């Protein structure tokens, strides 16, 4: 740099900075000089510290001089005096020194800067090189790692293990001598072996496929052949129907029935099976006819039943679609009122299964009891409805209206089984949800849920599930009870029509219970309602003893002889004749007396009410009621005739002359009359 400065003069001149006019002048003088003034070289020789000290001194001198000038000026010296000029010259010199120092400082600065710049440049270049190298290193590292990670496809192939390979592969492929040492070769060999195996197996597969096709074709042929047989068989079946009927072996019918029976709900199925079994076992009235004592058949809509039992998977897709549809619809439609919704829920809860069972029970006299069994699905109970068809026309007994009423015909078949409430305890909770208070409201529509019906269907509500054993054990008993009930009701029906005509029908076998001549006669036989009955004064003791229920049948019988009139209020339990009818008496003769006020009437009551063994007559005891009424008449006779024994104050003939033979007319502290009739001697005695 310095050599360059030496060569060029002009840059030195240009470096001249703005200064005082005096310095410019000095400069112009120096230009003409050929001597090179190299300040830079001078710069290197000078010590910056010294320059700094010089600067400080110069400043101090300047300050001093300025102060002197000031003094002079304030002392009143003239401008342009010698001392002032002297001082002024010295100031100028100092100024020049300062300028030089300034220049030197600038030059030093520049030099420093240049040096720094150079160094920086060098550093930058190196840095750049470093970066390049680093980048390259990284790149190489990446490449290496990529190479290391490379998985060849061959590793995905599952090869047999090495031991197996060496065992199985033939020598030319395995080449153990080579492959045992070299892993690469081993892998190659294994791959070879794999390839060969696969080729072989593919061959085999193709062959098996071809074979399968052939067999398939053969099966198809045989199937076609079989299906061609089907219409032929149908024809044969059709043709055989008349033959079946002739031989009374209704296979076809039974098959059809069995087919439909598959769709029955379990309790109805159990009931059907048991009823059919029972019917077959003990029912046939005549070998050559189809008339069985008990026959069962299924009625109802089979398709609906099939729809019910369809598995839910099929309808799941439909459901999701229909849900979406419904949502749309709901926003458009007005929502049904709460009442209607509740009604719908109730209807849903009380829904019956579409199939129902019809069981016909024949009795010996030809009348038939039809029982229709229904299954309520959501409540899991069975209900029954009844119908009676008789061979003879049942006419005219007004009081017998209730006897064969289908609502109450099967009441209390077993004690206290009224069939008004559902026997399934879980139904209580279900009813609460939809607001049904009692099941009794729906009974007339849906049928009676008697406990014996549940048992016949194998439903027992202390444990779960339909049990066949339960049904079987109850079947016989229940069927017998049903038959007995029907017969009893029919017998009563006939008897009532007689009673209404004031005739007490006494069968031949029971004649011995009564004397030949009975004067008192039945004049009226009517039916009463529960309300009317409980209002009677003389039956309160029966009410209090809890011996009557709303489900019982109530009647009023009037027996008369002369001026005496005996009213008898009769309570007949639905389970007649298992339970004796109960008589309560009230006598209107010379005043009114009842069993409560008079001991003899009470004795008459017990004579009529208590002696079942005597009064029921031949089995099955259907004569019970009529015998009781007849006995009542006999007792009234005895009562009236022996009453007249009293020495009446009033004179005159006795109204009821004594005709009955009695050993003695009074006995015991209460002086009871002899009501017991002894056969064949024909006299009356005390019990």
């Amino acid at each position, binding site marked *: 740099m310095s050599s360059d400065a030496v060569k060029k003069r002009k840059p030195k001149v240009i470096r001249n900075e703005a200064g005082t006019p005096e310095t410019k002048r000095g400069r112009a003088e120096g230009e003409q000089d050929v001597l090179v003034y190299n300040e830079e070289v001078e710069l290197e020789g000078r010590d910056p510290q010294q320059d700094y000290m010089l600067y400080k001194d110069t400043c101090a001198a300047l300050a001093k001089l300025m102060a002197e000038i000031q003094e002079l000026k304030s002392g009143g010296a003239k401008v342009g005096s010698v001392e002032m000029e002297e001082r002024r010259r010295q100031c100028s010199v100092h100024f020049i020194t300062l300028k030089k120092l300034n220049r030197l400082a600038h030059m030093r600065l520049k030099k420093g800067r240049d040096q720094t710049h150079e160094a920086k440049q060098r550093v930058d270049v190196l840095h750049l090189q470093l970066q390049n190298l680093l980048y390259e290193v990284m790149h190489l590292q990446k490449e290496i790692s990529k190479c290391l990670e490379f998985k060849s496809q061959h590793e995905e192939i599952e090869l047999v293990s090495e031991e197996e390979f060496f065992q199985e592969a033939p020598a030319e492929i395995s080449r153990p001598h080579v492959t045992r040492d070299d892993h690469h070769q081993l892998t190659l060999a294994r791959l070879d072996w794999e390839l060969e195996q696969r080729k072989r197996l593919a061959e085999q597969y193709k062959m098996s496929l071809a074979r399968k096709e052939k067999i398939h074709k053969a099966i198809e042929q045989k199937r076609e052949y079989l299906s061609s047989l089907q219409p032929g068989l149908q024809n044969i079946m059709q043709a055989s129907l008349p033959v079946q009927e002739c031989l009374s072996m209704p296979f076809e019918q039974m098959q059809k029935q069995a087919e439909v029976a598959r769709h029955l709900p379990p309790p109805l199925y159990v009931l059907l099976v048991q009823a059919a079994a029972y019917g077959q076992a003990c029912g046939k009235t005549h070998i050559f006819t189809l008339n069985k004592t008990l026959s069962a058949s299924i009625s109802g809509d089979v398709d609906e039943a099939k729809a019910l039992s369809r598995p839910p998977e099929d309808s799941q897709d439909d459901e999701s679609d229909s849900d979406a549809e419904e949502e749309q619809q709901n926003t458009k439609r007005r929502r049904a009122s709460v009442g209607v919704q509740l009604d719908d829920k109730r209807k849903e809860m009380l829904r019956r299964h579409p199939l129902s069972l019809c069981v016909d029970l024949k009795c010996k006299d030809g009348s038939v009891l039809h029982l229709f069994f229904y299954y309520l699905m959501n409540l899991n109970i069975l209900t029954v409805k009844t119908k009676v068809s008789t061979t003879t026309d049942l006419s005219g007994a007004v009081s017998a209206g209730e006897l064969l009423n289908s609502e109450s015909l099967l009441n209390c078949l077993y004690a206290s089984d009224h069939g008004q409430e559902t026997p399934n305890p879980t139904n209580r909770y279900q009813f609460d949800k939809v607001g049904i208070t009692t099941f009794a409201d729906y009974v007339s529509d849906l049928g009676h849920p008697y406990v014996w019906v549940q048992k016949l269907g194998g439903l027992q509500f202390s444990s779960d599930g339909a049990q066949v054993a339960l049904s079987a054990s109850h079947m016989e008993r229940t069927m017998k009870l049903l038959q007995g009930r029907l017969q009893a009701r029919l017998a009563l029906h006939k008897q009532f029509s007689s009673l209404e005509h004031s005739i007490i029908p006494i069968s031949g076998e029971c004649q011995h219970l009564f004397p030949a001549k009975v004067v008192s006669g039945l004049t009226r036989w009517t039916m009463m309602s529960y309300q009317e009955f409980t209002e009677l004064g003389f039956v309160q003791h029966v009410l209090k003893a809890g011996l009557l229920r709303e489900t019982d049948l109530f009647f009023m019988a009037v027996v008369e002889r002369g001026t005496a009139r005996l009213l008898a209020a009769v309570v007949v339990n639905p389970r007649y004749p298992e339970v004796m009818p109960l008589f309560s008496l009230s006598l209107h003769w010379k005043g009114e007396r009842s069993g409560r*006020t008079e*001991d003899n009437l009470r004795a008459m009551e017990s004579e009529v009410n208590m002696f079942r063994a005597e009064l029921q007559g031949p089995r099955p005891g259907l004569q019970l009621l009529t015998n009781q009424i007849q006995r009542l008449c006999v007792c009234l006779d005895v009562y009236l005739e022996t009453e007249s024994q009293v020495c009446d104050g009033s004179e005159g003939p006795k109204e009821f002359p004594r005709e009955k033979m009695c050993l003695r007319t009074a006995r015991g502290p*209460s002086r009871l009359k002899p009501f017991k009739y002894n056969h064949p001697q024909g006299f009356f005695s005390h019990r």
Partner: protein
Amino acid sequence: MFISLQLLHMSVFSQSFSPCGRFLAAGNNYGEIAVFSLSAALSPDASQASQKPILNFTAHDGPVFSLLSTDTHLLSAGNGEISAWSWAELIKKVRVSCSVNDNSLIVGGGDNNIHIMDMETGIFKSVLKGHTDYIHCLCFKEREEEILSGGEDGAVRIWDSRTNRPVHCIEVFKYEECARPQFGKWISCLATDSDWMLCGGGPSLSLWHLRSMSPTSVFPLPGCQREAVFYQDLIMSVGEGPHVSHCLHGGTVKAQIPCTPSSLNTLALNLKNTEHRVMTVGGSSHQIDVFTNFSYRAFSLSF
């Protein structure tokens, strides 16, 4: 249900207290005798169960019309035989029939006669004949050793027990004050208290003075009385009608206490035991009313 039917038609005909006074035996028309424990029924923590019999057995075929307690035995009479039961065994709820000892038993029967039986040997000692119809009631006058008997024929006969001969015969229905022809003439209750005698039945209940053999007061009770007793200065009687009548010697009816049975056959007073001093009545019902205070019914025992 048959049980309630039976209960509905049951009548209690006789009662007797045990010698210790803690038990009551009652006989009904089915021939059953039931023994009730009074101490259990009267105790403060008595329950429904303590009003049931502790023992109930069938003693006879026919109704048990009469029960009588001696010091050790309960005698029951039915339709033909007399049985004796040991109280000690009955209390232990065992029934054993056995013979008795001491004294003689006077039995009035349906054969119109009175039999006297020696209880030690069981042999009938003598027969008193005189009635023309069956005998309803008997009682014994201790002081004079006389037997009084009343029967269906309407006569009250007085017999001397030592000589077994009839002493008097009173035909009550012939006396106009007492007679009630609309009912009849039979005498169904007799009671005596030294000089006084009560009798009633068809005729009204009347109090007789035995020395003079005449009725001193007649009680205006409707219905026929079946049993009457003297108690302190009162006369208590039961019969037709659902009440116990308390009467005074003067002839007035002091009170009529209502009871459950519609008519009553028997009345018994437990005087042997001061703790259990009760009156019990039974009749045309399966329930026996117990009176602790004789003015009202306390509770009922039930068969």
